[in-house]
């Protein structure tokens, strides 16, 4: 189980803990299968993350990075390495920003290739 960002949660995933909104109100209980309707409600109530059974952030990132060629993945990672060279690599926030930057550039590349 691991905390997953709201926009990386998919219908069918199972909660490993209570899902709470920005003010700590419980929106959905533990052990529930998430539906499309739940996802809409989470977004509406400002839920930013949820504890999900059997999935972690690394799995989610991997799922995206596997969509492009390993060489492209390496090239994008190296570019990020250069861009982030003045930041503190051990910071949780920087780690998350780097992860999101990688996912975003992969998605943009996939979209550009699709056009």
């Amino acid at each position: 189980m691991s905390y997953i960002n709201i926009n990386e949660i998919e219908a069918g995933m199972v909660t490993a803990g209570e899902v709470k909104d920005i003010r700590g109100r419980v929106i959905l209980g533990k052990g529930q299968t998430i539906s499309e309707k739940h996802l809409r409600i989470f977004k509406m109530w400002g839920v930013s993350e949820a504890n999900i059974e059997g999935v972690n952030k690394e799995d989610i990132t991997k799922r995206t990075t596997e969509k492009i060629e390993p060489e492209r993945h390496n090239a994008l990672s190296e570019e990020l390495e250069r861009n982030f060279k003045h930041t503190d690599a051990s910071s949780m926030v920087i780690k998350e920003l780097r992860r999101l930057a990688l996912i975003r550039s992969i998605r943009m590349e996939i979209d550009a290739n699709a056009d």
Partner: protein
Amino acid sequence: MPTLTEDQASDFLQDCVDITSLPMLLIRLNNAINNPRSSITDIAKIISEDTSLSARLLRIVNGSLYGFPSRIDTINRAVVIVGTQQLRDLAMATSVTTLFKEIPDDLVNMESFWRHSVGCGLAAREIANLRQDINPERYFVAGILHDVGRLVMIKKDPSRSRSVLLRSKRDDELLYKSEAAVFGFDHSDIGRLLLNKWKLPSSLEEAVAFHHRPRKAVRYPLESAIIHLADVLCHAINLGKSGERFVPPLSDAAWKLIGLAPSTLSPIIEQVDRQFNEIIETILVD
């Protein structure tokens, strides 16, 4: 007592009359909003004199930034619904690009520059929204203005600005550090003085002044911290370019002061991506 850096920056800005004077309309708008006797109709009348500005403002208030259920078709109604200060901030945000025409484009790509600025404004606005701030528009305009000091430096002294770029590239140095080494001050010092000359609220001035040094902010530490984070975020996801090639270091103290969870970064980026094109098209229309 002003420091040596402030003196140098102030001397530098002295003869930039074309930039240091705001468009007449914005000055009048500012005065009207600061005058407790002016009515909503007075303010709407000033904005309505500029048809291009009015059209831009109506496009924004009817767009996804607000998502109002019914159409706002007059500036008068926009002032009532959005609020006078907020509309002034939006007017500022959508007019400032016109002040910086004729910048040599080998030193900075203006479109890319405004893309970074708009991204930063939207990110700052969204961070403020998540913190349930009552006036997120303040952050939008602060984000749009945070790097304008760099444009002044390029416009006034292209030769030394070129040295800054070369130095930063040669030494893999953060651009604001190269600026400080070459000029004796950086773009945030110039930005601060410029906003002061424009007589904008001191919260904006401080947010721009300390976006690379949020811990130095005395009166508005939160504003500075939010612009600092928004700037780091836009550099991280490569949204436009202000000239800087690197993601600036994130201040841990600023992050703690803002008090969001790292999991909010992803929704913030998504929201910025959703609103970005619409705002860019409105602002870069001319």
